[in-house]
């Protein structure tokens, strides 16, 4: 029987880096799951680009709560996927997951995204969010790149890419 849930690649940064990229992703699985836990040098957005595409080909609908209220909005013409308006913390690790469905298929690519940005602040500068993102491209996903809008992702941050197989 084929393994259903399998690690494809994992990186823990030994030095700060502007991106964590997994490339040459085989088409052997059905879905991909990307799990990120980390911090960055600036409170910029967490970003995800696919196949090095930085064009305005991404859109998202985000639902989030900040302890004060629940909010939702959508964005089109973005140049990356992003999970929330909170961004990276410089001190408290944030957990983000991207589930990329049918990544090797020939339709546009959708992702279900969650982010847990609790910081024990007692104010609205922390968030929990769930969102859907779309990449308007029919190519198979062969690389994913996590960024911080030009800032460095901090040492010790970890990203792991899993493959989920339906067959």
């Amino acid at each position, binding site marked *: 029987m084929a393994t259903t849930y399998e*690690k494809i690649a*994992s990186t823990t940064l030994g030095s700060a880096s502007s991106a964590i990229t997994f490339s040459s992703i085989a088409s052997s699985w059905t879905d991909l799951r990307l799990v990120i836990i980390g911090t960055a040098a600036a409170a910029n957005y967490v970003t995800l680009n696919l196949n090095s595409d930085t064009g305005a080909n991404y859109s998202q609908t985000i639902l989030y*709560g900040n302890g004060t209220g629940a909010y939702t909005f959508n964005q089109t013409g973005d140049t990356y996927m992003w999970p929330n308006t909170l961004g990276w913390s410089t001190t408290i*690790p*944030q957990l983000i997951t991207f589930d990329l469905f049918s990544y090797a298929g020939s339709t546009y690519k959708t992702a279900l995204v969650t982010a847990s940005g609790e910081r*024990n602040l*007692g104010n609205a500068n922390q968030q929990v969010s769930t969102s859907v993102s779309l990449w308007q491209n029919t190519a198979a996903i062969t690389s994913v790149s996590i960024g911080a809008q030009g800032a460095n992702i901090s040492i010790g941050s*970890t990203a792991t890419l899993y493959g989920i197989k339906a067959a």
Partner: protein
Amino acid sequence: MATYTLISSNVLSSTAGSVTFSAIPSSYTDLEVRFSGRTNDTSWAAYCWVTLNGATTNFSETALVGNGSTASSNRDSASSSWYQVRINGNNSTASTYGNASIYIPSYTASQNKPVSITSTNEGNSSTAGQIVMTATAALWSNTAAVTSITLDATTGGTLWMSGSSFYLYGISNA
């Protein structure tokens, strides 16, 4: 090593005040608790209180809550547990159990522990407030490795009911 491994399970054959997974080995990368639970609380949407390592300090959370009528968000800081975990109480439809997932990444790393929690007590009701779903960003401000996880009902003066089932998985990126 397999990527996703069952570490321990506990299916209740009688009531219990709390369920604890202890002596968790450090050989995985992440942990996930998945459970199906119902308490004898006289409500539709009961609570579960979650603690790590037996600690009673430094738990905080920000939750997104929907009840079929409104969406809201709330937070707790410097608390003794996480409790935005909603499962079925004993006033809910018979034989329905709430479901929850608790994902703890990098549980052995010497850093504060961010955690993702989702839960629901769906029970086929159209009455606002009886059904609740939550998505929670939780944080334990402690750098110790996680070695035990407790899912408690007694804080609310209630008990887990027979048939509640709890599973702890280890996820490895090795």
